[in-house]
Protein backbone atom coordinates (compact mmCIF):
# COMPACT_ATOMS: atom_id res chain seq x y z
CA UNK A 1 0.00 0.00 0.00
CA UNK A 2 0.99 3.60 -0.29
CA UNK A 3 0.03 6.58 1.81
CA UNK A 4 0.26 10.26 0.92
CA UNK A 5 1.71 11.49 4.19
CA UNK A 6 -1.50 13.45 4.74
CA UNK A 7 -4.08 12.52 7.36
CA UNK A 8 -6.88 13.98 9.44
CA UNK A 9 -5.70 15.03 12.87
CA UNK A 10 -9.10 14.37 14.40
CA UNK A 11 -11.05 11.16 14.74
CA UNK A 12 -14.57 12.60 14.37
CA UNK A 13 -15.18 13.33 10.72
CA UNK A 14 -18.40 14.68 9.22
CA UNK A 15 -19.79 13.94 5.79
CA UNK A 16 -22.65 15.11 3.63
CA UNK A 17 -24.09 14.31 0.24
CA UNK A 18 -24.41 17.60 -1.66
CA UNK A 19 -26.49 16.22 -4.55
CA UNK A 20 -27.55 12.91 -6.09
CA UNK A 21 -27.22 11.17 -9.48
CA UNK A 22 -29.18 13.20 -11.99
CA UNK A 23 -28.25 11.87 -15.44
CA UNK A 24 -29.14 8.21 -14.88
CA UNK A 25 -31.38 8.01 -11.86
CA UNK A 26 -30.91 4.32 -11.15
CA UNK A 27 -30.24 5.00 -7.47
CA UNK A 28 -32.50 7.22 -5.41
CA UNK A 29 -31.30 9.48 -2.60
CA UNK A 30 -32.66 7.03 -0.03
CA UNK A 31 -30.43 4.35 -1.55
CA UNK A 32 -27.36 6.55 -2.06
CA UNK A 33 -27.17 7.72 1.57
CA UNK A 34 -26.85 4.27 3.17
CA UNK A 35 -24.41 3.14 0.46
CA UNK A 36 -22.19 6.11 1.29
CA UNK A 37 -22.61 5.49 4.99
CA UNK A 38 -21.60 1.83 4.65
CA UNK A 39 -18.63 2.75 2.46
CA UNK A 40 -17.31 4.99 5.26
CA UNK A 41 -18.08 2.30 7.81
CA UNK A 42 -15.68 -0.05 6.00
CA UNK A 43 -12.86 2.28 7.14
CA UNK A 44 -14.19 3.12 10.61
CA UNK A 45 -14.63 -0.60 11.39
CA UNK A 46 -10.86 -1.06 11.56
CA UNK A 47 -9.69 2.30 12.94
CA UNK A 48 -10.69 4.73 15.65
CA UNK A 49 -12.30 7.05 13.13
CA UNK A 50 -15.97 8.00 13.60
CA UNK A 51 -18.07 9.30 10.73
CA UNK A 52 -21.09 11.49 11.32
CA UNK A 53 -23.65 12.51 8.75
CA UNK A 54 -23.87 16.31 8.91
CA UNK A 55 -27.23 17.92 9.58
CA UNK A 56 -28.76 19.86 6.67
CA UNK A 57 -27.69 23.19 8.19
CA UNK A 58 -24.09 21.94 8.49
CA UNK A 59 -24.08 20.22 5.11
CA UNK A 60 -21.78 22.69 3.38
CA UNK A 61 -19.25 22.63 6.22
CA UNK A 62 -18.84 18.86 6.40
CA UNK A 63 -15.30 17.48 6.16
CA UNK A 64 -16.11 15.03 3.37
CA UNK A 65 -18.56 16.59 0.91
CA UNK A 66 -19.84 14.12 -1.64
CA UNK A 67 -21.23 15.23 -4.98
CA UNK A 68 -22.15 13.90 -8.40
CA UNK A 69 -20.76 16.18 -11.12
CA UNK A 70 -20.24 16.12 -14.89
CA UNK A 71 -17.41 17.25 -17.13
CA UNK A 72 -15.83 20.53 -15.93
CA UNK A 73 -16.93 21.06 -12.37
CA UNK A 74 -14.67 23.82 -11.06
CA UNK A 75 -11.98 21.78 -9.39
CA UNK A 76 -9.46 21.54 -12.23
CA UNK A 77 -10.12 17.83 -12.70
CA UNK A 78 -12.89 17.48 -15.32
CA UNK A 79 -14.73 14.21 -15.84
CA UNK A 80 -14.83 12.62 -19.28
CA UNK A 81 -18.31 11.24 -19.81
CA UNK A 82 -19.31 7.61 -19.37
CA UNK A 83 -16.36 5.25 -18.80
CA UNK A 84 -12.79 6.52 -18.45
CA UNK A 85 -12.48 8.29 -15.14
CA UNK A 86 -15.19 7.44 -12.62
CA UNK A 87 -14.49 9.52 -9.53
CA UNK A 88 -11.85 11.29 -7.49
CA UNK A 89 -11.31 12.60 -3.99
CA UNK A 90 -9.06 15.18 -2.38
CA UNK A 91 -6.54 14.12 0.22
CA UNK A 92 -6.89 15.35 3.83
CA UNK A 93 -5.34 18.69 4.67
CA UNK A 94 -5.98 22.34 5.34
CA UNK A 95 -7.45 23.14 1.94
CA UNK A 96 -11.18 23.86 1.70
CA UNK A 97 -11.64 20.95 -0.69
CA UNK A 98 -9.71 18.44 1.45
CA UNK A 99 -11.71 15.22 1.76
CA UNK A 100 -14.24 16.19 -0.91
CA UNK A 101 -15.29 13.32 -3.11
CA UNK A 102 -16.71 13.68 -6.61
CA UNK A 103 -18.44 10.98 -8.67
CA UNK A 104 -18.88 11.35 -12.44
CA UNK A 105 -22.60 11.89 -12.94
CA UNK A 106 -22.35 10.53 -16.50
CA UNK A 107 -21.75 7.02 -15.13
CA UNK A 108 -24.69 4.72 -14.54
CA UNK A 109 -24.40 4.31 -10.77
CA UNK A 110 -25.88 1.07 -9.49
CA UNK A 111 -25.63 -1.27 -6.54
CA UNK A 112 -25.07 -5.03 -7.00
CA UNK A 113 -26.07 -4.64 -10.64
CA UNK A 114 -23.43 -5.38 -13.27
CA UNK A 115 -25.23 -3.27 -15.87
CA UNK A 116 -23.78 -0.16 -14.24
CA UNK A 117 -20.89 0.92 -12.04
CA UNK A 118 -21.15 -0.17 -8.41
CA UNK A 119 -21.35 2.97 -6.29
CA UNK A 120 -20.39 1.17 -3.09
CA UNK A 121 -17.13 -0.24 -4.53
CA UNK A 122 -16.08 3.12 -5.98
CA UNK A 123 -17.09 4.99 -2.82
CA UNK A 124 -14.97 2.76 -0.55
CA UNK A 125 -12.00 3.39 -2.87
CA UNK A 126 -12.50 7.17 -3.01
CA UNK A 127 -12.93 7.47 0.75
CA UNK A 128 -9.55 5.74 1.04
CA UNK A 129 -8.10 8.78 -0.78
CA UNK A 130 -10.17 11.19 1.33
CA UNK A 131 -8.53 9.63 4.39
CA UNK A 132 -4.97 9.81 3.00
CA UNK A 133 -4.28 6.66 1.00
CA UNK A 134 -2.72 6.52 -2.47
CA UNK A 135 -3.25 3.85 -5.07
CA UNK A 136 -2.01 0.37 -4.27
CA UNK A 137 -0.57 -2.17 -6.66
CA UNK A 138 -1.48 -5.07 -4.36
CA UNK A 139 -4.09 -7.69 -5.07
CA UNK A 140 -6.55 -7.80 -3.50
CA UNK A 141 -6.86 -4.13 -2.60
CA UNK A 142 -9.77 -1.74 -2.88
CA UNK A 143 -7.14 0.96 -3.55
CA UNK A 144 -6.13 -0.48 -6.92
CA UNK A 145 -6.81 2.32 -9.39
CA UNK A 146 -8.92 0.28 -11.83
CA UNK A 147 -12.60 -0.47 -11.38
CA UNK A 148 -12.87 -4.12 -10.39
CA UNK A 149 -16.64 -4.53 -10.34
CA UNK A 150 -18.96 -4.96 -7.40
CA UNK A 151 -17.43 -5.95 -4.08
CA UNK A 152 -20.64 -7.50 -2.80
CA UNK A 153 -23.15 -6.63 -0.16
CA UNK A 154 -22.60 -3.47 1.89
CA UNK A 155 -23.36 -5.23 5.16
CA UNK A 156 -20.79 -8.00 4.83
CA UNK A 157 -17.95 -6.11 3.16
CA UNK A 158 -14.56 -6.26 4.92
CA UNK A 159 -11.49 -4.37 3.74
CA UNK A 160 -8.67 -6.51 2.28
CA UNK A 161 -5.61 -6.84 4.55
CA UNK A 162 -3.52 -4.44 2.45
CA UNK A 163 -6.06 -1.64 2.90
CA UNK A 164 -6.65 -2.41 6.57
CA UNK A 165 -2.93 -2.19 7.26
CA UNK A 166 -2.69 1.01 5.22
CA UNK A 167 -5.43 2.84 7.09
CA UNK A 168 -4.20 1.55 10.45
CA UNK A 169 -0.73 2.91 9.66
CA UNK A 170 -2.34 6.36 9.57
CA UNK A 171 -4.98 6.15 12.30
CA UNK A 172 -4.11 3.13 14.41
CA UNK A 173 -6.13 0.02 15.12
CA UNK A 174 -9.66 0.18 16.39
CA UNK A 175 -9.78 -0.13 20.15
CA UNK A 176 -13.53 -0.50 20.66
CA UNK A 177 -15.93 -2.86 18.86
CA UNK A 178 -16.78 -2.37 15.16
CA UNK A 179 -19.01 0.53 14.21
CA UNK A 180 -22.71 -0.43 14.55
CA UNK A 181 -24.31 -1.17 11.20
CA UNK A 182 -26.38 1.63 9.74
CA UNK A 183 -29.36 -0.65 9.06
CA UNK A 184 -31.47 2.20 7.80
CA UNK A 185 -30.61 5.36 5.88
CA UNK A 186 -28.83 8.30 7.45
CA UNK A 187 -31.66 9.14 9.83
CA UNK A 188 -30.33 6.33 12.03
CA UNK A 189 -26.73 7.50 11.96
CA UNK A 190 -25.36 9.25 15.02
CA UNK A 191 -25.65 13.02 14.88
CA UNK A 192 -22.47 15.05 14.57
CA UNK A 193 -21.05 16.34 17.82
CA UNK A 194 -22.00 19.89 18.77
CA UNK A 195 -18.45 21.11 18.35
CA UNK A 196 -15.83 19.62 16.09
CA UNK A 197 -12.18 19.63 17.01
CA UNK A 198 -10.80 22.28 14.67
CA UNK A 199 -7.32 23.48 13.89
CA UNK A 200 -4.61 23.12 11.30
CA UNK A 201 -3.39 19.71 10.25
CA UNK A 202 -0.27 19.00 12.25
CA UNK A 203 2.73 17.69 10.35
CA UNK A 204 3.14 13.98 10.59
CA UNK A 205 6.04 13.09 12.94
CA UNK A 206 7.54 10.92 10.22
CA UNK A 207 8.15 14.02 8.09
CA UNK A 208 10.50 15.39 10.72
CA UNK A 209 12.01 12.00 11.20
CA UNK A 210 12.80 11.77 7.52
CA UNK A 211 14.56 15.13 7.59
CA UNK A 212 16.77 14.13 10.51
CA UNK A 213 18.78 11.66 8.41
CA UNK A 214 20.71 8.94 10.22
CA UNK A 215 19.62 6.15 7.89
CA UNK A 216 20.68 2.62 8.81
CA UNK A 217 21.02 1.55 5.20
CA UNK A 218 20.64 3.01 1.72
CA UNK A 219 20.33 0.78 -1.33
CA UNK A 220 19.86 1.08 -5.07
CA UNK A 221 17.36 -1.70 -5.74
CA UNK A 222 15.97 -2.15 -9.23
CA UNK A 223 16.81 1.43 -10.06
CA UNK A 224 15.10 2.96 -7.06
CA UNK A 225 16.82 4.18 -3.93
CA UNK A 226 15.58 2.80 -0.62
CA UNK A 227 16.40 4.59 2.63
CA UNK A 228 16.02 2.32 5.67
CA UNK A 229 15.67 3.70 9.17
CA UNK A 230 14.50 1.73 12.17
CA UNK A 231 11.56 -0.48 11.17
CA UNK A 232 10.67 1.77 8.17
CA UNK A 233 11.89 2.70 4.74
CA UNK A 234 11.37 5.49 2.25
CA UNK A 235 11.62 4.96 -1.46
CA UNK A 236 12.80 7.28 -4.21
CA UNK A 237 12.02 6.58 -7.83
CA UNK A 238 14.27 6.91 -10.84
CA UNK A 239 12.71 10.30 -11.51
CA UNK A 240 13.89 11.52 -8.10
CA UNK A 241 10.36 11.52 -6.68
CA UNK A 242 9.84 10.36 -3.13
CA UNK A 243 7.04 7.78 -3.35
CA UNK A 244 5.53 9.01 -0.09
CA UNK A 245 6.54 11.24 2.79
CA UNK A 246 5.08 8.51 4.96
CA UNK A 247 7.53 5.63 5.40
CA UNK A 248 6.55 2.02 4.82
CA UNK A 249 7.09 -0.82 7.29
CA UNK A 250 10.06 -2.98 6.28
CA UNK A 251 8.30 -6.17 7.36
CA UNK A 252 5.17 -5.38 5.36
CA UNK A 253 7.12 -5.14 2.12
CA UNK A 254 10.09 -7.46 2.52
CA UNK A 255 8.48 -10.78 3.33
CA UNK A 256 10.43 -13.28 5.38
CA UNK A 257 12.43 -11.15 7.78
CA UNK A 258 11.86 -11.90 11.47
CA UNK A 259 8.75 -10.10 12.80
CA UNK A 260 10.93 -8.42 15.39
CA UNK A 261 13.10 -6.72 12.75
CA UNK A 262 13.48 -3.11 13.74
CA UNK A 263 16.68 -2.22 11.93
CA UNK A 264 18.77 -3.38 8.98
CA UNK A 265 22.50 -2.79 8.62
CA UNK A 266 23.03 -2.86 4.86
CA UNK A 267 21.24 -3.93 1.69
CA UNK A 268 22.37 -4.35 -1.92
CA UNK A 269 21.23 -5.95 -5.18
CA UNK A 270 23.55 -8.72 -6.38
CA UNK A 271 24.76 -8.21 -9.93
CA UNK A 272 24.73 -11.80 -11.19
CA UNK A 273 21.13 -12.71 -10.44
CA UNK A 274 19.55 -9.50 -9.13
CA UNK A 275 18.91 -11.13 -5.76
CA UNK A 276 18.64 -8.64 -2.92
CA UNK A 277 20.83 -9.21 0.13
CA UNK A 278 19.94 -7.91 3.60
CA UNK A 279 22.52 -7.79 6.37
CA UNK A 280 21.21 -7.66 9.92
CA UNK A 281 23.66 -8.22 12.77
CA UNK A 282 25.66 -11.41 12.29
CA UNK A 283 23.25 -12.86 9.69
CA UNK A 284 22.21 -12.24 6.09
CA UNK A 285 19.08 -12.97 4.07
CA UNK A 286 18.78 -13.40 0.27
CA UNK A 287 15.58 -12.22 -1.40
CA UNK A 288 14.11 -13.00 -4.75
CA UNK A 289 12.21 -9.78 -5.39
CA UNK A 290 10.46 -9.08 -2.10
CA UNK A 291 10.38 -12.63 -0.72
CA UNK A 292 13.19 -14.30 1.16
CA UNK A 293 14.59 -17.50 -0.33
CA UNK A 294 14.36 -20.70 1.67
CA UNK A 295 17.39 -21.54 3.83
CA UNK A 296 17.93 -18.02 5.16
CA UNK A 297 19.13 -16.41 7.36
CA UNK A 298 22.68 -17.66 7.10
CA UNK A 299 25.64 -16.62 9.25
CA UNK A 300 27.80 -13.73 8.09
CA UNK A 301 30.80 -16.03 8.44
CA UNK A 302 29.80 -17.49 5.01
CA UNK A 303 31.39 -14.39 3.48
CA UNK A 304 34.79 -15.21 4.97
CA UNK A 305 35.53 -11.67 6.10
CA UNK A 306 38.39 -11.54 8.62
CA UNK A 307 39.70 -8.20 9.93
CA UNK A 308 43.36 -7.19 9.70
CA UNK A 309 43.76 -8.13 13.37
CA UNK A 310 42.29 -11.60 12.76
CA UNK A 311 38.71 -11.24 14.03
CA UNK A 312 35.60 -12.51 12.27
CA UNK A 313 33.32 -9.74 11.03
CA UNK A 314 30.11 -9.79 13.06
CA UNK A 315 28.31 -6.85 11.49
CA UNK A 316 28.26 -5.03 8.14
CA UNK A 317 28.15 -1.22 7.83
CA UNK A 318 27.67 -0.86 4.09
CA UNK A 319 27.46 -2.91 0.90
CA UNK A 320 27.34 -1.87 -2.74
CA UNK A 321 28.38 -2.74 -6.26
CA UNK A 322 30.84 -0.29 -7.76
CA UNK A 323 29.71 0.41 -11.31
CA UNK A 324 33.32 1.12 -12.28
CA UNK A 325 34.33 -2.56 -12.08
CA UNK A 326 31.13 -4.46 -11.22
CA UNK A 327 32.68 -5.78 -8.00
CA UNK A 328 30.89 -6.00 -4.66
CA UNK A 329 32.30 -3.99 -1.75
CA UNK A 330 31.46 -4.58 1.89
CA UNK A 331 32.41 -2.16 4.65
CA UNK A 332 32.74 -2.93 8.35
CA UNK A 333 34.51 -1.14 11.19
CA UNK A 334 36.75 1.07 9.06
CA UNK A 335 37.79 -1.73 6.69
CA UNK A 336 36.42 -2.96 3.39
CA UNK A 337 36.47 -6.20 1.41
CA UNK A 338 36.05 -6.72 -2.34
CA UNK A 339 34.17 -9.68 -3.82
CA UNK A 340 34.13 -10.95 -7.39
CA UNK A 341 30.73 -12.60 -7.34
CA UNK A 342 30.23 -15.12 -10.12
CA UNK A 343 27.47 -17.38 -11.35
CA UNK A 344 28.13 -19.94 -8.62
CA UNK A 345 25.70 -19.85 -5.75
CA UNK A 346 28.26 -20.53 -3.03
CA UNK A 347 30.35 -17.65 -1.79
CA UNK A 348 34.06 -17.93 -2.60
CA UNK A 349 35.23 -15.41 -0.03
CA UNK A 350 36.76 -11.99 -0.59
CA UNK A 351 39.40 -11.18 -3.19
CA UNK A 352 42.99 -11.49 -2.05
CA UNK A 353 44.60 -8.42 -0.59
CA UNK A 354 41.54 -7.50 1.47
CA UNK A 355 40.54 -6.04 3.86
CA UNK A 356 41.86 -2.58 3.22
CA UNK A 357 41.37 0.59 5.17
CA UNK A 358 38.32 2.67 4.18
CA UNK A 359 40.41 5.84 4.22
CA UNK A 360 41.52 4.78 0.73
CA UNK A 361 38.18 6.25 -0.43
CA UNK A 362 39.55 9.76 -0.08
CA UNK A 363 37.03 12.48 0.68
CA UNK A 364 34.36 10.02 1.85
CA UNK A 365 33.54 9.23 5.51
CA UNK A 366 35.54 6.30 6.87
CA UNK A 367 32.52 4.64 8.52
CA UNK A 368 29.66 5.24 6.08
CA UNK A 369 26.07 4.34 6.96
CA UNK A 370 25.86 2.92 3.44
CA UNK A 371 27.09 3.36 -0.12
CA UNK A 372 25.28 3.12 -3.47
CA UNK A 373 26.08 3.48 -7.13
CA UNK A 374 23.82 6.11 -8.70
CA UNK A 375 23.57 8.64 -11.49
CA UNK A 376 26.43 8.24 -13.98
CA UNK A 377 27.92 5.28 -12.10
CA UNK A 378 29.21 7.49 -9.29
CA UNK A 379 29.62 6.14 -5.74
CA UNK A 380 27.40 7.89 -3.19
CA UNK A 381 28.55 7.61 0.44
CA UNK A 382 25.91 8.35 3.09
CA UNK A 383 26.65 9.27 6.69
CA UNK A 384 24.29 10.87 9.24
CA UNK A 385 22.38 13.49 7.20
CA UNK A 386 25.00 14.02 4.49
CA UNK A 387 26.28 12.37 1.37
CA UNK A 388 29.44 12.57 -0.72
CA UNK A 389 29.73 11.73 -4.42
CA UNK A 390 32.89 10.05 -5.67
CA UNK A 391 33.00 10.31 -9.43
CA UNK A 392 32.84 7.11 -11.45
CA UNK A 393 35.95 5.03 -10.98
CA UNK A 394 37.75 7.50 -8.73
CA UNK A 395 38.89 6.81 -5.17
CA UNK A 396 41.32 9.67 -4.92
CA UNK A 397 39.51 12.90 -5.73
CA UNK A 398 41.09 16.16 -4.69
CA UNK A 399 37.90 17.56 -3.24
CA UNK A 400 34.58 15.93 -2.48
CA UNK A 401 31.80 18.23 -1.36
CA UNK A 402 29.49 17.16 1.43
CA UNK A 403 25.80 17.56 0.49
CA UNK A 404 22.53 17.33 2.39
CA UNK A 405 20.60 14.06 2.23
CA UNK A 406 17.52 15.71 3.74
CA UNK A 407 17.33 18.44 1.12
CA UNK A 408 18.49 16.57 -1.97
CA UNK A 409 16.86 13.17 -1.36
CA UNK A 410 14.15 13.52 1.26
CA UNK A 411 12.45 16.63 -0.16
CA UNK A 412 12.95 18.57 3.07
CA UNK A 413 13.20 22.37 3.07
CA UNK A 414 16.19 22.04 5.36
CA UNK A 415 17.80 19.51 7.65
CA UNK A 416 16.23 19.11 11.05
CA UNK A 417 18.03 17.93 14.10
CA UNK A 418 16.45 15.83 16.78
CA UNK A 419 15.17 18.21 19.43
CA UNK A 420 16.74 17.44 22.82
CA UNK A 421 14.20 16.49 25.43
CA UNK A 422 13.43 19.45 27.66
CA UNK A 423 14.43 19.13 31.32
CA UNK A 424 10.84 19.91 32.33
CA UNK A 425 9.55 16.97 30.30
CA UNK A 426 12.14 14.67 31.77
CA UNK A 427 11.30 15.72 35.29
CA UNK A 428 7.55 15.82 34.73
CA UNK A 429 7.09 12.46 33.12
CA UNK A 430 9.84 10.18 34.25
CA UNK A 431 11.51 9.59 37.58
CA UNK A 432 15.00 11.01 37.53
CA UNK A 433 17.51 9.01 39.51
CA UNK A 434 21.23 9.14 39.97
CA UNK A 435 23.65 6.87 41.76
CA UNK A 436 23.39 8.72 45.06
CA UNK A 437 19.61 8.78 45.20
Amino acid at each position, binding site marked *: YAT*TGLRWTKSDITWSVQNYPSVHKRLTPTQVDPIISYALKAWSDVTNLNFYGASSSEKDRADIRISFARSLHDD*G*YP*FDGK*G*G*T*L*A*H*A*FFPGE*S*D*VAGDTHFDDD*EIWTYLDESG*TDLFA*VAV*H*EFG*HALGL*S*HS*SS*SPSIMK*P*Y*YQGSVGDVGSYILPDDDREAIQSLYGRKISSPTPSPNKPTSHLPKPPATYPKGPVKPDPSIQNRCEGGFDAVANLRGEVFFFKGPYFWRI*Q*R*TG*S*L*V*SFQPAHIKNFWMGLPPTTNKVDAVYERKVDNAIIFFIGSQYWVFKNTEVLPGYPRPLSDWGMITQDGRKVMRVDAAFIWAHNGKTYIFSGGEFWRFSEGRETELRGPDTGYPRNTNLWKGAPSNPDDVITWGQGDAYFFKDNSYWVLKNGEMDQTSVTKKSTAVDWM*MCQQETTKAPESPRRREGVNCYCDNSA
Partner: protein
Amino acid sequence: HSAPVKDQYSRGVDWLSRYGYLPPLDPRTGQLQSKDGIERAIREMQRFAGLKETGKLDSDTLTLMNTPRCSLPDIIGIEDKLKKRRRKR
Protein backbone atom coordinates in the same frame (compact mmCIF):
# COMPACT_ATOMS: atom_id res chain seq x y z
CA HIS B 1 -2.91 1.98 -41.34
CA SER B 2 -0.40 4.05 -39.42
CA ALA B 3 -2.80 6.68 -38.17
CA PRO B 4 -4.57 4.59 -35.49
CA VAL B 5 -1.23 3.33 -34.21
CA LYS B 6 0.06 6.89 -33.85
CA ASP B 7 -3.15 7.83 -32.11
CA GLN B 8 -2.77 4.89 -29.75
CA TYR B 9 0.78 5.97 -29.02
CA SER B 10 -0.10 9.57 -28.22
CA ARG B 11 -3.07 8.46 -26.16
CA GLY B 12 -0.80 6.10 -24.31
CA VAL B 13 1.69 8.89 -23.57
CA ASP B 14 -1.15 11.14 -22.44
CA TRP B 15 -2.45 8.37 -20.16
CA LEU B 16 1.03 7.76 -18.68
CA SER B 17 1.45 11.49 -17.98
CA ARG B 18 -2.00 11.82 -16.48
CA TYR B 19 -1.52 9.00 -14.00
CA GLY B 20 1.98 9.99 -12.90
CA TYR B 21 4.16 7.53 -14.81
CA LEU B 22 5.75 10.23 -16.99
CA PRO B 23 6.84 13.59 -15.59
CA PRO B 24 4.81 16.52 -16.88
CA LEU B 25 6.41 18.18 -19.90
CA ASP B 26 8.04 21.52 -19.36
CA PRO B 27 6.13 23.97 -21.59
CA ARG B 28 9.10 26.37 -21.64
CA THR B 29 11.56 23.96 -23.17
CA GLY B 30 8.99 21.90 -25.07
CA GLN B 31 11.25 18.86 -24.81
CA LEU B 32 9.90 15.60 -26.17
CA GLN B 33 9.52 12.62 -23.90
CA SER B 34 12.39 10.26 -24.62
CA LYS B 35 11.75 6.84 -26.14
CA ASP B 36 13.55 5.22 -23.24
CA GLY B 37 11.56 7.31 -20.79
CA ILE B 38 8.27 6.21 -22.34
CA GLU B 39 9.34 2.58 -22.37
CA ARG B 40 10.35 2.85 -18.71
CA ALA B 41 7.03 4.46 -17.89
CA ILE B 42 5.13 1.68 -19.66
CA ARG B 43 7.12 -0.90 -17.73
CA GLU B 44 6.39 0.88 -14.48
CA MET B 45 2.70 1.01 -15.32
CA GLN B 46 2.76 -2.70 -16.19
CA ARG B 47 4.58 -3.56 -12.97
CA PHE B 48 2.13 -1.54 -10.88
CA ALA B 49 -0.81 -3.21 -12.63
CA GLY B 50 0.64 -6.72 -12.37
CA LEU B 51 0.99 -7.12 -16.16
CA LYS B 52 3.92 -8.70 -18.00
CA GLU B 53 6.64 -6.04 -18.27
CA THR B 54 7.17 -5.61 -22.01
CA GLY B 55 7.72 -1.86 -22.18
CA LYS B 56 5.39 -1.86 -25.19
CA LEU B 57 1.82 -0.72 -25.65
CA ASP B 58 0.67 -4.31 -26.15
CA SER B 59 -2.94 -5.41 -26.14
CA ASP B 60 -3.11 -6.18 -22.40
CA THR B 61 -1.68 -2.77 -21.60
CA LEU B 62 -4.03 -0.94 -23.96
CA THR B 63 -6.99 -2.88 -22.55
CA LEU B 64 -6.09 -1.82 -19.04
CA MET B 65 -5.57 1.77 -20.16
CA ASN B 66 -9.16 1.69 -21.43
CA THR B 67 -10.52 0.25 -18.18
CA PRO B 68 -12.63 2.69 -16.13
CA ARG B 69 -10.67 3.96 -13.17
CA CYS B 70 -10.17 6.57 -10.48
CA SER B 71 -8.86 9.90 -11.84
CA LEU B 72 -6.11 10.26 -9.27
CA PRO B 73 -2.57 9.42 -10.41
CA ASP B 74 -0.94 6.15 -9.35
CA ILE B 75 2.44 7.76 -8.81
CA ILE B 76 2.30 10.96 -6.85
CA GLY B 77 5.57 12.83 -7.06
CA ILE B 78 6.46 16.00 -5.24
CA GLU B 79 5.90 18.03 -8.43
CA ASP B 80 2.35 16.78 -8.73
CA LYS B 81 1.61 17.54 -5.12
CA LEU B 82 2.91 21.08 -5.41
CA LYS B 83 1.06 21.61 -8.67
CA LYS B 84 -2.17 20.41 -7.11
CA ARG B 85 -1.74 22.69 -4.14
CA ARG B 86 -1.12 25.65 -6.43
CA ARG B 87 -4.14 24.78 -8.56
CA LYS B 88 -6.37 24.47 -5.53
CA ARG B 89 -5.24 27.87 -4.26
